[in-house]
Every structure is written in structure tokens, then in C-alpha cells.
């Protein structure tokens, strides 16, 4: 039976994340019209880590950036439109202002060459996988990318893969 990864931030290498299986999900809400799975295990949230190699900012709207972990480049989007989007109109204004403030702080951390740990939801955009960012942490340890590689390989082998790799 495939492991249940649905409510976990699954640590994945970029090449693994970018090869997730996408399945149209016509019965869900508009923001989740595609569901994602890895080797038969559905997942919705991921954690990646790598070097910021691209950023494109539309202030008050969004920040697009990419994370290169040496196995691939993951497109990420950080929404910055909380104060104008109708999506948040039913939330308490003070909560929305706080969310907007946090998102703005995250955006200021994303600089070319920085190493960032990113958490978020897996979403689809024009047929490709991307991450809708919910958390950003800048890493200073020069060994952190190496340790992330090892972590992802260990978790894939021991936790995520329903069957061991056959050689």
C-alpha cells in the first residue's frame, strides 16, 4: 500500500518533484483542479532546498522565482496580493494584513544566489509543476544543500517509496 503523504511536507529533489504525476481533479475547488502523486502516493505539500537562480517581482501581485538544487529548477510563486484579492475578503482584515506582511518579508529574502528552504503547495501552471510558497527560510550553512540531498535520498528510500528500488 502506498504511504500516506497527503498532509506532510514531502522533502523532494527537484527532478523528483518535476516528474510528479498530474491527474485532473474535476470535482474539487478551482485552486485544486489538478492532483499530484509520486509513485502512486498522493501528495499536496513539499519542501525543497536550493539556490535562487531567478526572480521576477510584480509588487503587490506576486514574486516568481526558481530554486536550483543541482537536479533541476523548480518554479515557485509567492503571492503578494492579499490586500486586494477577493480570495481573502472573508478573512479578518487584521489577519490578512499579517499574512500580507509575512509574505512581503519572505519576498525580501529571495535574492539571486541565496540558498533557500521553501515549503508550499504543489500546483500546476501551464502543464508544469510549481510550488505555491507558504514558507521561506534562508540557509547560511555551506553544507546544507549536501545534507538536503542526503536527506531526500534517505527519505525516498525509507519512507516515501512503497517498494525498494530494484537494481
Amino acid at each position, binding site marked *: 500500500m502506498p504511504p500516506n503523504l497527503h498532509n506532510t511536507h514531502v522533502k523532494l529533489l527537484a527532478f523528483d518533484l518535476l516528474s510528479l504525476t498530474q491527474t485532473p481533479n474535476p470535482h474539487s475547488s478551482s485552486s485544486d483542479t489538478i492532483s499530484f502523486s509520486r509513485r502512486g502516493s498522493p501528495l499536496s505539500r513539499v519542501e525543497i532546498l536550493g539556490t535562487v537562480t531567478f526572480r521576477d517581482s510584480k509588487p503587490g501581485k506576486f514574486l516568481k522565482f526558481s530554486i536550483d538544487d*543541482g537536479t*533541476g*529548477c523548480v518554479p515557485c510563486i509567492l503571492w503578494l496580493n492579499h490586500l486586494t484579492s477577493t480570495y481573502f475578503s472573508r478573512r479578518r482584515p487584521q489577519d490578512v494584513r499579517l499574512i500580507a506582511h509575512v509574505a512581503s518579508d519572505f519576498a525580501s529574502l529571495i535574492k539571486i544566489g541565496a540558498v533557500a528552504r521553501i515549503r508550499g503547495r504543489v500546483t500546476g501552471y501551464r502543464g508544469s509543476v510549481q510550488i505555491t510558497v507558504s514558507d521561506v527560510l534562508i540557509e547560511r550553512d555551506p553544507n546544507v544543500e*549536501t545534507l538536503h540531498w542526503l536527506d531526500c535520498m534517505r527519505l525516498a528510500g525509507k519512507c516515501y517509496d512503497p517498494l525498494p528500488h530494484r537494481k
Partner: protein
Amino acid sequence: MAGIQSGTPVTLAELRPESPLFKEGASLRVTGKIQEYSVETAIATVVDGDSKLKIDTQHLRDLSFRTGSIFQFIGELLIHPDNEAVLQARVGRNVDGIDLNLYHQSLQLLRQFQADHIRA
């Protein structure tokens, strides 16, 4: 964003003309110690053991290339007619304190993991 290529991690020793990684325009990630740096040309030379590579840093900002520091660069390989390679860096960072032995061993494991994953 779709046009941004991932920099494949390579060791400087692997960047020999006979290597499949040694090709014009290849997006690579290299790590090495700054041996020399010219402010006039913005060319840095990085070394790892007996291997060395020139890095064109003209597109990088806010970095100080101190001799003896270890840097990691992501960029595209340019190969001159005499087979001399220069990495046109688009990203660079100081990684002083990196455990290069762990890095090199982990890189071998990573390649094996990717190969197994693709075969599975």
C-alpha cells in the same frame, strides 16, 4: 522562467575535453578555491586539487573574491577554440566551511539515485 536551466554539479576534475559534460553552453555548478582574481577582467580562477577553471564573474554583484575562499558558481560553459573553458557565471556564492569530501561523495550518491529513479 522555463528557460532557466539547472546547473549540473560537476567537479573541476571532470571538466576534461573528453568528458560529456565538457560542451559549449552546458549549464554547470562548480565549486573551488579562488586562486586568483582580476578586477580588470572580472575573471576568477578556481582550483580543486590539480584541476582549475576560469570563471567569468562580470554578471555577478555584491561578491568579494578573496584568494583562498571557496566559491560555488552556476553558469554556462564557454569553450574557446584552443579548448580552454570559461564558466560564464550567473550565480555565485561564498561557501567557506563546506566539507568538500562530503560534497564529492554525496554527489556520487546523488547521481546514482537519479539514475536508479529514472530506471525504476
